[in-house]
């Protein structure tokens, strides 16, 4: 009964939104009838299928092939480019990868005002997307954040709960294992902030050798208590198993542990690190495939579609005009607003991933970080 209702509600909402936009979608001349889209798999890809590609295929009959290779997208695109055979039409990547692909000439530069839809009130996309347009090749979709989750049932804490990100470094008050990513990015920033560096001076300090040493010295204080993760699914799993008491991961993953799996876990939004995720179009696509991609993007990045995606996963839409349209979760029926990383109450302290800085210094800092880890 409940399932039936849900299905009804879902189809109704699709029908309504689908109908409202059919007339707006420009006709597609000389377009390929299938598309290979590369994404991350899991709940995130599922949200894209439900919010973008299913309604689009219903309207146009386009066939979608999903490839779950986003975490290796840059290496694979480079190999495809060298082989002269691009088999992907549209690739979902994180901001830093988009910058990298653009630098290497593997992603196409796009004029968002030319190929994307305006906001309902007529605001041009370049304004509507604003700061999320981090590279001339990048078409943003979502804002996500890397933040901490902690278990709410740790006996050794005697009823205390972490309220600040720096509690990660407090093993006296909050004993137990923590999970951190096996990469320097974000860990270095967090360590320095908890070592007393002001947010404004962060990257000036990191540019010096002493700054990195200082961050590693701070991380040294908890090194024995850390399990280092490399896949986004690790921390949620470790939290659910009780292997760790707190750990960093993507906010959407924590949402599914808390809201969908009902685990005794809570979010600590303090000093979450914002990142963007979005589309890039590989360079060198034949015209018919490129036309199909542009037509799809016009649909999939409009204000309503980006807001729709937030029904399936707790990542914030990259368009300002989409925020007011974010509603309830499609299956759980809970209000999604408060679970968005961009919700004002979650944004008291935050950092935005400094892509420019990391693209220049990551090789160097990574070598130091890995050498430190190995010892």
């Amino acid at each position, binding site marked *: 009964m409940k399932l039936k209702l849900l299905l009804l509600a879902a189809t109704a909402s699709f029908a309504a939104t689908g109908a409202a936009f059919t007339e707006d979608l420009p006709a597609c001349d000389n377009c390929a009838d299938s598309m290979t889209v590369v994404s991350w798999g899991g709940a995130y890809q599922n949200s894209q299928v439900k919010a973008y590609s299913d309604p689009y295929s219903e309207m146009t009959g386009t066939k979608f092939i999903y490839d779950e290779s986003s975490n290796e997208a840059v290496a694979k695109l480079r190999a495809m480019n060298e082989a002269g055979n691009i088999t992907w039409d549209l690739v979902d990547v994180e901001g830093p990868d988009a910058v990298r692909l653009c630098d*290497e000439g593997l992603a196409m530069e796009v004029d968002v005002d030319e190929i994307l839809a305006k906001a309902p009130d007529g605001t041009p996309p370049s304004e509507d997307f604003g700061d999320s347009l981090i590279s001339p090749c990048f078409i943003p979709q979502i804002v996500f954040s890397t933040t901490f989750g902690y278990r709410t049932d740790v006996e050794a804490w005697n009823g205390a709960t972490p309220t600040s990100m720096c509690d990660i470094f407090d093993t006296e008050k909050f004993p137990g294992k923590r999970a951190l990513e096996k990469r320097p990015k974000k860990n270095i920033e967090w360590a320095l902030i908890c070592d007393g560096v002001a947010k404004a001076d962060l990257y000036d300090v990191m540019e010096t050798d002493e700054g990195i040493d200082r961050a590693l010295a701070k991380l040294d204080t908890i090194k024995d208590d850390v399990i280092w993760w490399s896949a986004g699914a690790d921390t949620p799993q470790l939290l659910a198993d009780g292997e760790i008491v707190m750990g960093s991961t993507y906010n959407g993953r924590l949402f599914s542990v808390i809201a969908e799996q009902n685990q005794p876990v809570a979010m600590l939004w303090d000093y979450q690190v914002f990142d963007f995720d979005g589309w890039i179009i590989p360079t060198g696509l034949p015209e018919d495939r490129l036309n199909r991609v542009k037509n799809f993007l016009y649909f999939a990045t409009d204000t309503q579609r980006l807001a729709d995606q937030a029904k399936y996963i707790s990542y914030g839409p990259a368009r300002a005009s989409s925020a007011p349209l974010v509603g309830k979760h499609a299956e759980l029926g809970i209000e999604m607003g408060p679970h968005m990383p961009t919700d004002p109450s979650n944004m008291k302290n935050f950092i935005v991933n400094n892509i420019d800085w990391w693209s220049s210094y990551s090789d160097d800092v990574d070598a130091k970080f*890995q*050498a430190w880890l190995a010892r």
Partner: protein
Amino acid sequence: MWRGGSPPRPHSSNAGEKMTSTTTDQIGASGDGIMRAADGTPLKRSLARALRREKLRSFLLILPLLAFITLTFLMPIADMLFRSVENGIVQETIPRTVVALKDWDASSGELPSEEVFAAFQQDFTEAFKNKTHTRLGLRLNYDEPGMSGLFRKSGRKATQLEPPYREGFIDIDQDWGKLETWRVIKRASPSLTDGYFLAAVDAERTSDGLQMKPEKERIYLYLFWRTMFLSIVITVSCLLLGYPIAYLLANLPLRTSNLLMILVLLPFWTSLLVRTSAWKVLLQQQGVVNDTLVWLGIIDTTSRLELINNQTGTIIAMTHILLPFMILPLFSVMKTISPSYVRAAKSLGANDWTAFWRVYFPQTVPGIGAGAILVFILSIGYYITPELVGGTSGIFISNRIAYHISTSLNWGLAAALGTILLGLVLLLFYVYDKIVGIDNVKLG
């Protein structure tokens, strides 16, 4: 039996040919001492021809496989390894600058002349049009952090510069006025580089010449050493665990040994990822092994053992995964050892241990050799298991290679590390051949 009166002459093809017509009816030694076939051709030549034909036929039979391997395996590997020294990008992207920089003395303490800057501006404008300037920036960033940002930021502005170019560039970003920037460009100019190999052994070339990297950044030599060490530990533990099982397999009655064999092969046929994940469930602190030990009262719940995300985890999981590669060659060698040897030894008065150690064990050495070399070479290049259960102290050099291939995209460094690893394996193989002898290795 010499025909005619001519004395025996030394073998020579000339003599053979002269005699051919007169010896067609004979097989065997002819008058001049040459063995001949039925048709009178010298046996040696006829044999060689037959052999050649045979060889050609077998060559044609393996030709498809050879072509396949060359095309899909050897050539890509050679291409990948060549990347470890390849450095054409600088000359291709900024050819005029490279030429102009030849006359600049990097140790003079002065910036390159206006001429160099003019050449650079021209090169840069062209590179910007082809969108290759950022690619060059990424390449130079391996030598000097900050270069990729400098090239990206200068972008369009540098293409619109008017003379004097030197001041113009320094206006865009003061890094263009730094000596080190130009030294890096000059150092990176040759079309071949040893930079990746130096980086792969924790060394670097700076303005002060060749030197080791600062202590805090050294990692690769240490990882090579650890990979070797852990591989040896894994090989030894595979041998210790596998030898008794292989012995049982070879000596139990068929029905029981078949059952045992299935137990060995079943995990062998199971997906690697499934087995590795299973070890995660078993070994973690809230896992099956720790829970059992706590329940039995052997350890306290506050002092649970750390069996995973460290070297212990890597050794346990990889020993289990590679065990069949040790057991199977051992088993096939043991199967061929006749039990009568040990019986004979015992009848001659040897006790159990002497009979095993002096008679049985030496005959299994070829199996040990085969198993050990298989396990060692497989484990030295292992990637996925250390990645999943190794934490930070249990990862191998291959995990860094994978990181440079797919994340940092420094394929040159990955290729250099891979070449060194390949060289190490070949070297060990050579040493092994010298000590054990590769002919003594038996897979069955």
